[in-house]
Each structure stands twice: as C-alpha cells, then as structure tokens.
C-alpha cells in the first residue's frame, strides 16, 4: 500500500499515512555518504550496543571464546502451551556455542542471547523452532542468527509471518541456506539474509551472490570454532558461514542503529568483497 501524505487532518489519518511535518522530518532523518564503503559501514565498530540472538542448541556461556551471554532461555512445549524458561542446561550439541564464538570473534563487544530450541527430540522440534523465533522477534533483537532450517511445509506460513514481523520490527534474521536441492525455510524468504559457504580463509570476506535465493557467501570451510565443555574443533558447513554475516551485521547495527533490515542487507551487498571497487 502506498504511503499517502497530507498537510493536515492528521488525527483522521490511518496508520499507514504520515502527516506533513513528520514527512519532512523523515526526509531529513538520514545522511548517506556519496559512496558507501566498509569504513563507513562498520569501521571502528566493535558491536557494542547491538544484541545478537542465537537460535540453536544452546550456548556454553563459560566458553572462553564465547565470553558470556546476556541471557539464555530454552523453549519447552507442553501440549498447546509454550514455556520460555531460563536455560540451565546450556548447549546440548556444541553447535550453538560454535555460532556464538564466531559472532563474538567478529563483533567482540556485542551482547549475545541464546534461545535453545533443540534437545526435546525431533518430533517437537518444529514447534520449538517457531516459538523460539517468535520469542526472539518479540524481544526486538538487532540480529537473529538462525543456522538451521526446516523442510516441513506445515510450518511455512508461521515462519513467513514471523520473518515478515521481524523485518518490520527492525530485527534482521540471518539464516543458513540449505546445501541440497530440497525446499527449506526460512532462508528462502526475501525478508531474511540467506548465507552459504565459501572456502576463503578470511572471516571478513563475504561475497554477494547475483543469483539468489542464496544472497551471500561467507567463510564456512575449516573454521576453528568453540564447542562443548570448553573444547574447540574444526568445522565446515553453511551453519558456520551464517554467524560470520551475523557478526558483520552486528557491527553495522551498532554503528548505525537506525538502519532497517533491507538497508543493512543493501549495505552488505555494497561492501561485499566482490563488490568493493575503491578503497
């Protein structure tokens, strides 16, 4: 629906309209540089002030490469009731810790939040994923890292609605692409940033893909990652590429907190390793 502008009669305006003075304020709200580069996008940013939520297997907050989490919750579903509880278990696999460690390495001063949606078996995993994402979107985190996907068609409508809600509430969802020829979600939705792997040994090398639905490639081959019980191991997969992009988005969001998800995504494209022409 197109935005309609009116100079007066603001009380009668529907929610999608904006009145004259407000429109003028919006017009002048952001100054863009004549050329966007990485220095402008996230130079000097450590992620301080940005919050990144890891929707995964839980996070080992004590791991030295994670450096603590601001909050950790677990999703438990009983019948029709969803319980969001303080997570006393931590990481049931090691993967969430790996993602958190990667995000911390890129954006050292961001705040990390963990939502554990795994550990209750396969059958309940779809609803837990939906409810975990719902909680994360409601909290309004700057970035939500989803190194996971589902092929179950019955969850597609809910996932779609949630990713759209996140988009409009200025929470940027960064989601792992599937590396096999099956339909899975939410990475295929245009409202999220979708990520697959490249094998360049540089955590800040990210490539824009002119041929979506995969939109970006980030480091995802032979990455040294944090794992359970304070250990580290070497890991490969799209799910490790995704937190690299989440970390970079945290740097951008910390430096430019007023940017919307499509603006952050555009900025990623403009500053990608295969797009930078100057500087």
């Amino acid at each position, binding site marked *: 629906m197109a935005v309609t502008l009116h100079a007066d009669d603001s009380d009668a305006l529907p929610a999608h309209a904006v009145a004259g003075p407000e429109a003028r304020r919006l017009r002048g709200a952001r100054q863009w540089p004549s050329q966007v580069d990485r220095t402008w996008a996230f130079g000097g940013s450590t992620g301080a002030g940005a919050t990144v939520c890891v929707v995964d297997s839980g996070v080992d907050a004590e791991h030295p490469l994670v450096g603590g989490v601001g909050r950790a919750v677990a999703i438990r579903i009983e019948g029709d009731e969803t319980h969001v509880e303080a997570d006393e278990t931590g990481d049931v*696999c090691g993967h969430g810790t790996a993602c958190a460690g990667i995000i911390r390495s890129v954006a050292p001063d961001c705040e990390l939040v963990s939502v554990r949606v*795994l550990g209750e*078996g*396969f059958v309940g995993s779809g609803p837990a994923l939906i409810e975990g994402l719902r909680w994360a979107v409601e909290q309004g985190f700057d970035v939500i890292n989803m190194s996971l996907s589902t*092929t179950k068609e019955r969850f597609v409508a809910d996932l779609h609605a949630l990713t759209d809600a996140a988009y409009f509430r200025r929470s940027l969802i960064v989601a792992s692409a599937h*590396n*096999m020829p099956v339909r899975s979600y939410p990475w295929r939705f245009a409202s999220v940033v979708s990520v697959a792997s490249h094998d360049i040994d540089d955590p800040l090398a990210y490539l824009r893909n002119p041929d979506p639905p995969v939109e970006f490639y980030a480091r995802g081959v032979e990455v040294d990652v944090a794992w359970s019980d304070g250990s580290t*191991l070497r890991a*490969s*997969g799209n799910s490790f590429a995704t937190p690299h992009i989440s970390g970079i988005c945290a740097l951008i969001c910390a430096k430019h907190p007023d940017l919307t998800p499509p603006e952050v995504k555009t900025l990623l494209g403009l500053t990608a390793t295969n797009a930078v022409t100057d500087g």
Partner: protein
Amino acid sequence: MSGDRAAIAAGLLPGDDLHRALLRSIVDTARAIFRAQAASVFLLDAETDELVFEAVSGEGEESLVGRRFPSSTGIAGWVLVTGQSLVLDDVTADPRFASQSAQSTCYVPKCIMAVPLESGDRTLGVLEVLDRPCAERFTMAESDLLGIFAAQAAIALDLLQRSRSARRLLDDGGGDAAVLTRLAAALESAEAEDREAALALLQALERIVSRRR
C-alpha cells in the same frame, strides 16, 4: 485407497532385503569414495522419536545395526533437527562427545561428516561418514559429493519406509483390497490351466467394474 494400493504393491514385492542391500551398498560406496573408516545411515523412527542405525559399513558394522538413541542427541540429532549438514574435524577434543560416542558405539571417530536425508518435506534420517583422512583439507567438491550421496540414500530410505508401512498395513489385514494381493500371489503359483481360467474370470470382472464407473 493409496494405502491399499501400496499394500498390494508391497505384497507383490519381496521383503525389504533388497532395500537393505541398497542402503548397505550406499554406505559401502560412501566409505570408499571418501576413503573413510566407516559410514552409517540412521533412520528416524517417528513413533518412538529415536534414530536407528539402519546400515553400517566399516567400524561397528557387526554390532550397530538396529541400535537406537534419542533423536536430538549429539551431532546426528542436530543435523536431523536442523536440516543442515556438518563436517567436523578433531571431535575427540570434545570430551562429552567422545564419552557419549564410546559408550554407545565403542568407537570414537576423529572426524565426522553428517548430512540430513530428506525427501520432499519429510525428514527421514541422517548419513554419517566417519574418519575420512583428517589431515587433508575438506573441500567444497567433497561437500557437493556428500550432498549427492545424501540424495541417493534418501531415495533408498524413502522406498524402505514406504515398503515397510505398506507391509504393516498388509499384516494388519491389508485394507479392503488385500484380497487382490492374495489373488495375485495365488495366480503366480497356479498351474497354467487354472491360471488361464482365473485370468479369463478376472478379465470379465474388470469389464463389469469398468462399466459401472
């Protein structure tokens, strides 16, 4: 009716030995291609929410088939639940993983490649390849190869599951049309003269049923 048709089809086929042989061939080939110590296919049992060792090549092949564990446990569980493939080296660095693995399989791998087995929107299980030569750098080509193998294994697993559920239907009475399965089996073993007469009757029956459609 689709259940009936599946049951009839299952009734005409041999047991799931051929499907098992196909899965075994897939894990043998995966193991050979990746020069790995072992390869396994796990099947999700949705009723008990467990993963079951369905086919194993290499370490543990004698003892592991049929063994079960909770569906969201460890690396296979994460891959199953999230639909993402993983390649992990130096997993023995994680003491919890090493101890879990040793307790459940008596074998502690150093490197794991794990990929979900999916058909349409159904998640069927997980393919794992253990201990490829860890000193060699993992490449994107290997990742692609793993995906191709997973697609093949998923088809075999899908066929196996469908065949088993159809056979269960047949064992439970086979639905309304089970008589057709029994009839087909009887025809196969009948004497030539009886078979000819029975077929003539069946063709007449077919004409009657088709006329009333």
